[in-house]
């Protein structure tokens, strides 16, 4: 079992909910990322998604698109992200999930990536554009090296597709709260509730909900229904607005703490 599995066991035992934090690795520069991740963890993030930048991020809104551009400009590639993970792992046991698109992974090599990611202390991987139909080789490679494979389910997913997503996922299932690209929204989509209920009827895996979540109220509402909530663009935007601000890490930490208060639990 990976750190992801142990995290969800632990949350269940303690009756707590998990906060999952996304950032784009290498934004604004690879050497900055370990300190930003540590700030997320100090604020109470239970799991960190490390985005690997891709030139053509079709599933991402403008905030994460710009973060990816900054990271690529700073020379971030898969090797750099693995080095970042290794550095974080030297100081923290926070579960780490690679979050990216298929092409950088194919180019690195499926088996090579699984091996190197496991060695760097990464616990799993999520590829936004790898449909379950095309994911056989990828899943096999990751599982061979003891990594979790997390897949997305969406409000548009049919029951047949939800079953496939659950079948291919290990660690947890990531539910997309609404149809759309990544990005903050004022209010939660009504589509999340039915999706959560439908997936719950299909699988015993822990469920996390993401896309459009940016406020403690969102965290509070979803925390009543699922094991974990994912916040991404809101954190990336905070980073973007404070690229040269010496207090960036402190701001990030306190924003994560504020979000986590949504669960009604002090970190």
């Amino acid at each position, binding site marked *: 079992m990976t750190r992801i599995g142990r995290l969800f066991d632990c949350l269940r035992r303690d009756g707590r909910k998990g906060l999952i934090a996304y950032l784009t690795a290498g934004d604004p520069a690879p050497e900055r990322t370990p300190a930003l991740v540590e700030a997320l963890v100090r604020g109470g993030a239970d799991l960190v998604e490390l985005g690997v930048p891709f030139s*053509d991020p*079709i599933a991402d809104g403008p905030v994460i*698109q710009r973060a990816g551009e900054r990271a690529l400009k700073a020379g971030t590639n898969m090797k750099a992200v693995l080095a970042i993970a290794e550095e974080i792992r030297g100081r923290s046991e926070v579960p780490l999930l690679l979050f990216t698109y298929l*092409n950088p*992974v194919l180019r690195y090599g499926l088996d090579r990536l699984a091996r190197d990611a496991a060695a760097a202390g990464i616990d799993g991987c999520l590829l936004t*554009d790898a*449909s379950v139909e095309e994911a056989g080789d990828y899943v096999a490679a990751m599982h061979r090296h003891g990594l979790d494979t997390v*897949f997305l389910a*969406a409000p548009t997913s049919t029951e047949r*597709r939800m079953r496939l997503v659950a079948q291919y996922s290990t660690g947890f299932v990531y539910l997309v709260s609404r149809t759309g690209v990544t990005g903050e929204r004022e209010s939660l989509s009504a589509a999340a509730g039915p999706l959560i209920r439908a997936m719950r009827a299909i699988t015993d895996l822990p469920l996390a909900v993401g896309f459009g979540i940016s406020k403690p109220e969102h965290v509070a509402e979803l925390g009543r229904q699922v094991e974990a909530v994912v916040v991404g663009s809101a954190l990336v935007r905070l980073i973007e607005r404070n690229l040269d601000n010496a207090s960036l890490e402190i701001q990030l930490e306190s924003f994560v703490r504020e979000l986590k208060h949504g669960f009604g639990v002090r970190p």
Partner: protein
Amino acid sequence: MTPQPDQGGHFGPYGGRYVPEVLMAPIEELAEAYLAARADPAFQSELNELLRTYAGRPTPLYFARRLSETLGGARIWLKREDLLHTGAHKINNCLGQALLARRMGKRRIIAETGAGQHGVATATVCALLGFECVVYMGEEDMRRQRLNVFRMRMLGARVVGVSAGSRTLKDAISEAMRDWVSNVAGTYYLLGSVLGAHPYPMMVRDFQKVIGEEARAQVLAAEGRLPDAIFACVGGGSNAIGIFHAFLPDPSVALIGVEAGGRGAGIGDHAARYRGGAPGVLQGAYSYVLQDEDGQIALTHSVSAGLDYAMIGPEHAWLHDQHRAEYTAASDAEALDAARLLSRTEGIIPALESAHAVAEAAKRAPAAGGKLFLVNVSGRGDKDIDIYRENFKELDQS
């Protein structure tokens, strides 16, 4: 060769469906709706009627006597897709998909466009059928194809400029996909080439294969035999697959796809996927794509906006690996020369895209005495007049 693609949209290892889960169920629904429409005689007959009375099919197959004599070798025939309504082969696919969208109950159509020909054809069919139309176009392409931007607006479409990345076709497709992900319920994505996730490469091919079916019958009627070689330009590759397809079972017919050789051999200076590209995943499909060693998609260059794209359609990747089609490239300069040659010998100003196919045929014709060449003139050059003016400055002196 076994019929391609398989049920999952694979041409050998290529093609498939690589899109976010949000789009998977809608794309399955699209594939089902398309297969039902394809089997429905009423759908086919309405499409054929529109192709005949509205688009202007069949297009002529024209013997280019002066061009052939000037080059001194092969007898060159031109398939005149440039004579279609809206000025290019793109209308074949747009009529088919628009009828499908109506059948599926969708009222809002989105599309991407590079050179603007697909955007214009989409705006046209949306006007014809009364749909809302949004076209995404890279800002660089809007600059170099501004006449087409105006045409789309006049036809009632909203043209949305895309400022991301290289501000060309690839970025326009990404933005159209983001729109689709966000508005999936009532929106139909009318993709313009044999790219993207299944069923698009198969469906767009099916709507374009009329080009080759007509050409095959026409050349047999005119010459009493099949051509020795067929030339077509390849961006995504819809006009090429359209003219190739009817000839796939004829091993004596060489199928030659001409990519954009751009201004040089370096990465970023061309859009020739078989010169430095490798199989990878972009915007829904697995195929040859220009990319760097980290799997980041490369920037491309071509004087022709319609060929300026990093990936080639998956069926072309398969035909390439099977050695059934041959792929080469013509440079910006060769395409410009060919456009001028065709203009002066035949009175036909071709689109810059099509000029790449003319260039390759012109290169091979002198050494091909007794051979029969067929060139797909996929579009006309009106949209490129600004670029021709920039490049032929001596013609612009008073």
